[in-house]
């Protein structure tokens, strides 16, 4: 297996010798893949979020609704293009273009597979690579910020301007954390080129556990877990995705930087956002998840890392990373802006710096003491990980102790268990209360009416189980009300 892998693994010398039509083919192929991935990611996101919210999601256009985003894209292209009266016209026009172009460019250094044969030409499945490969992605994401910042400024309107100010601060800060998280990978791989980072994750680590020999994982996500976690958090901020989507927080800023945009210009922003998501997912797969190499149970098969098969493993990893993005969006509420910035600067960046120090020290020590990576992982990494886990467990238990005590006492019948004498509270602001409604003090927490008729779930109705509405309880116990009354 290793012999085959070595033969197919492209090195830096393999790039830059392609015939012109192969280069053209690769460029067009990457463009097509990115557009298709965007269309897929939008439908995928809508369907996954719908499932998480007990809905069905788009299911009308095309087979099982999978052509929905194609229809939406076509619709978007035919909408009216609006130029606001106060807009700065050249910049307003350029901003979506500036956002979209770097998004496409960044994918050119992502390795999609090993050396394959295209119409008889041996060529790596990667447009190009350079000694600074990963830095190209960073540079492109740095340029992409301009699109968003300029869009908000050029719109000549308040909300977009606020959105673009937020995004400028946010992306600059989170790019630092992202760059620092990658440094440890560079240290381990000994290279910044994407194809060589994939090669560095090719062979498993030989672990020697008291005479017991086995092959450990060589993915950098396992070897450098802290880097991986910081990278994942930072790229969510970098791509403006929920829960870090403050530049376009629709409940605060209408639409943020793209409030004034419509038609194809808006479509370009949408395209750029999803391509950025795909790119950072692909970069996560490349840097931390072994790139196009097959994951463990499949890699036992000798042919897994040859020919066109790696394309499949690669895109499976990308889709898994996309799912995490969507999962986060479906689960977490948006952060407050100051908390978000504090988290970036006071938690992510210092953690990344300390981690780089630790990794560099371990590298030096293991080189001086002549230890293998596997030994270091076994004798230092595992105990350290156990220590951190124990610490986290203790911390979370002590953080939740108030809640647990309160819950236990509440279940024993007490109300305000930890606070028998509530502290002096600020006077309640004068608020209008609907006449006749009971106050909170009278036990009148807003509840739905007792005889609320809930329409049956569409899934139940499809099975024909229950066509009529059902009277449901509102989840309040009569005894609880009495206790609350007694408390006041």
């Amino acid at each position: 297996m290793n012999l085959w892998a070595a033969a197919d693994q492209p090195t830096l010398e393999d790039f830059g010798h392609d015939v012109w039509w192969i280069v053209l083919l690769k460029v067009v192929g990457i463009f097509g893949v990115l557009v298709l991935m965007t269309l897929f990611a939008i439908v995928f996101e809508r369907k996954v979020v719908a499932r998480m919210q007990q809905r069905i999601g788009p299911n009308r256009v095309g087979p099982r609704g999978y052509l929905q985003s194609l229809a939406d894209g076509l619709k978007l292209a035919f909408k009216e293009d609006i130029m606001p009266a106060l807009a700065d016209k050249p910049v307003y026009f350029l901003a979506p273009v500036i956002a979209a172009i770097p998004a496409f460019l960044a994918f050119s250094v992502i390795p999609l597979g090993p050396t394959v044969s295209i119409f008889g030409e041996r060529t790596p499945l990667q447009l190009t690579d350079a000694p600074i490969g990963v830095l190209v992605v960073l540079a492109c994401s740095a340029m992409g910020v301009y699109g968003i910042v300029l869009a908000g400024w050029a719109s000549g309107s308040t909300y977009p301007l606020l959105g673009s100010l937020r995004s400028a601060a946010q992306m600059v800060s989170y790019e630092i954390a992202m760059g620092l998280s990658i440094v440890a990978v560079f240290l381990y791989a000994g290279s910044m080129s994407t194809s060589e980072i994939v090669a560095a994750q090719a062979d498993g680590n030989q672990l020697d556990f008291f005479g017991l020999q086995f092959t450990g994982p060589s993915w950098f996500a396992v070897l450098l877990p802290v880097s991986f976690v910081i990278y994942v958090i930072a790229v969510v901020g970098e791509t403006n995705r929920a829960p870090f989507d403050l530049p376009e927080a629709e409940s605060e800023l209408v639409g943020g930087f793209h409030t004034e945009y419509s038609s194809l210009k808006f479509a370009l922003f949408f395209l750029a956002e999803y391509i950025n998501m795909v790119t950072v997912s692909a970069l996560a797969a490349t840097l931390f998840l072994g790139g196009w190499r097959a994951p463990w149970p499949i890699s036992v098969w000798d042919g897994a890392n040859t020919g066109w098969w790696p394309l499949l493993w690669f895109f499976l990893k990308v889709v898994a990373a996309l799912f995490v993005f969507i999962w986060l969006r479906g689960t977490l509420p948006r952060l407050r802006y100051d908390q978000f910035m504090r988290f970036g600067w006071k938690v992510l960046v210092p953690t990344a710096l300390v981690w780089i120090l630790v990794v560099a020290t371990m590298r030096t020590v293991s080189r001086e003491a002549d230890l293998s990576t596997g030994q270091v992982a076994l004798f230092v990494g595992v105990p350290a990980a156990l220590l951190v886990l124990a610490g986290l467990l203790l911390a979370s238990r002590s953080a939740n102790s108030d809640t647990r005590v309160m819950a236990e006492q509440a279940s024993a019948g007490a109300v305000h268990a930890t606070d028998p004498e509530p502290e002096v509270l600020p006077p309640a602001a004068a608020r209008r209360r609907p006449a006749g409604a009971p106050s909170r003090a009278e036990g009148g927490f807003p509840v739905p009416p007792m005889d609320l008729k809930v329409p049956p779930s569409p899934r139940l109705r499809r099975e024909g189980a229950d066509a009529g509405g059902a009277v449901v309880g509102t989840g309040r116990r009569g005894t609880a009300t009495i206790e609350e009354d007694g408390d006041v």
Partner: protein
Amino acid sequence: MTPGDADVVIGTGEAVVFWVLGPVALAGALGMVLSRNAVHSALWLVNTMLALGVFYVVQSAPFLGAVQIIVYTGAIMILFLFVLMLVGRDSSDSVVETLRGQRVAATVLGLGFAGLVGAGIARATEDLPVAGLGDAQAEGNIPAIAELLFTRYLLAFEVTSALLITAAVGAMVLAHIEREPGSRQTQKELSRARFLTSDRPQTLPGPGVYARANSVAAPALLPDGRTLDETVATGVEPQEVQQMPRPTGREQLGSPDAALGTLDPAPADSGEQR
């Protein structure tokens, strides 16, 4: 390329890139000086910096090119833009000179400075032996830079970082506002206070789906037609505003009760059962 090779051969690709991007970089520089709007100036500068970054890459210094784009165009110019946007978008330069003769003096001094620097560099590098790229970075661009940075120029490197950190700490000290610890309520305290003292722990209701007027003074309507006075913003007297007529029959717009499914769920359900 051997050391001291006088006839340096420039590849076709490099020449093409130079003749395409050279004018672009120059146009950016001129545009930066000549445009009235500060943000446009910044954008022209970004244009020049990008062109310079590409030049570095073409001249076999890929790391320098990438750092030029990431650090200068990506971070520093974004901060410039940040400040310019805070200043406001209508603060274009005034055409009136505030200092008499300012432009002439600036032009003369600028040209003089450029001449001095150019002549100085030309003199200093006149008889410098050319080592050639192959010798300067035998093991590649990045290891060569790393070796120089961490051996020969280590002191300069560290002093620069100390300078930058001092500047950052100084800016923070100047901008910092001392606050008595505990003088601000935490989010937890605020939330407790809101839940324990008020009748409405959640936010106030919005303008309302059923409102028939496009005015902040018009309260929202409840589905049964009553008004919801809490939706009027504080500071606005609730008043009688001109409203669109309410739909009276199911023929006109459909009954709001039917839309909620509380009164008469029959139409929605029978359609599904066929």
